[in-house]
């Protein structure tokens, strides 16, 4: 389809919209930075859940907050050593 809005110089993002997005993003980071303890808690909880199903390399595991253009994601890198035999049999 034709993008008439763009052709006729239609609205680009206003500065207040940009401020809104940038703040939402930076505050997640500010907060995460203030509390590495929270990241540690999250990590431990993830280990607990995943360990039911697979054996993971806890020392090599990494989690972090990462961002692209306009979203923040919790990214986890969890090396798996082997599956547990009980996997899939849990309630």
């Amino acid at each position: 389809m034709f993008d008439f809005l763009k052709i006729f110089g239609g609205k680009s993002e206003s500065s207040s919209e940009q401020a809104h997005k940038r703040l939402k993003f930076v505050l997640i980071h500010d907060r995460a930075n203030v509390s590495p303890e929270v990241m540690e808690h999250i990590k431990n909880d993830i280990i607990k859940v995943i360990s039911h199903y697979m054996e993971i390399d806890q020392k090599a595991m990494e989690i972090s907050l990462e961002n692209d253009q306009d979203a923040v994601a919790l990214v986890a890198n969890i090396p798996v050593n082997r599956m547990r035999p009980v996997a899939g049999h849990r309630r």
Partner: protein
Amino acid sequence: MSEVIVITSGKGGVGKTTTTANLGVGLASRGKKVVLIDTDTGLRNLDLLLGLERRIVYTLVDVVQKRVNYGQALVRHKKYTNLFLLPTSQVADKTAIEPAQMLELVEAMKSEFDYILIDCPAGIEQGYETAVIGADWAIVVTNPEISAVRDADKIIGKLQAANKKIKLVVNRIRPQMVKDGTMLDMTAIDDILSLECIGQVPDDDKVVDSANRGVPVVESKDSAAGEAYRDIVGRVCGEDIPFKPLEVETFWQRLKHVFGR
């Protein structure tokens, strides 16, 4: 029952002292017995905004260091006779008052006042700790600017960690800029900080004019900021006051603004 409220912000110059003075006068003119405590030791201003600067004898520092009772340091307002100021020292610095001393003082004052409002200094150091320790809840003042909102969030994190309830005041909003999409509005700031908002105060020349006179703007009937502060007073008293849409100046009003005086 006494209510202790700290007015804080993180970033400096966003309107904490202005908010404290207006809230104090507004509550007092509703018949509440109110004391305003200035904790911006070394940089006091609350006395000026209330027109009380020439009547200070003793200060908060004298009180916490037990040279005088708090009653001797209180300055009573002439017009609002149930409004009192506990000024701080202009020569000492923030380390002159320990948070524990402040807590003891606030506890002792509770039986005498309906509202104890504490004007917090900018920053997150000892001055902040001293101001916040005795408070039941906090008003965080911010401006619709990216840096002020970020600093507000830092303070909000600290207040939440200390289990204080928080309400937000957005000060110095310029309706025309909001309309043009060049300034954050209250809804956006609400969305970013997720706090209950109890006030949106427009940027208003009358605030400066009334500071010059030492008469808080909450009393002037023809000021948009004054009206916003009256609404804040009502909300602090627990009234459910809907937010009015901010008025953008019409062409003629703006013309009058520029040429008329």
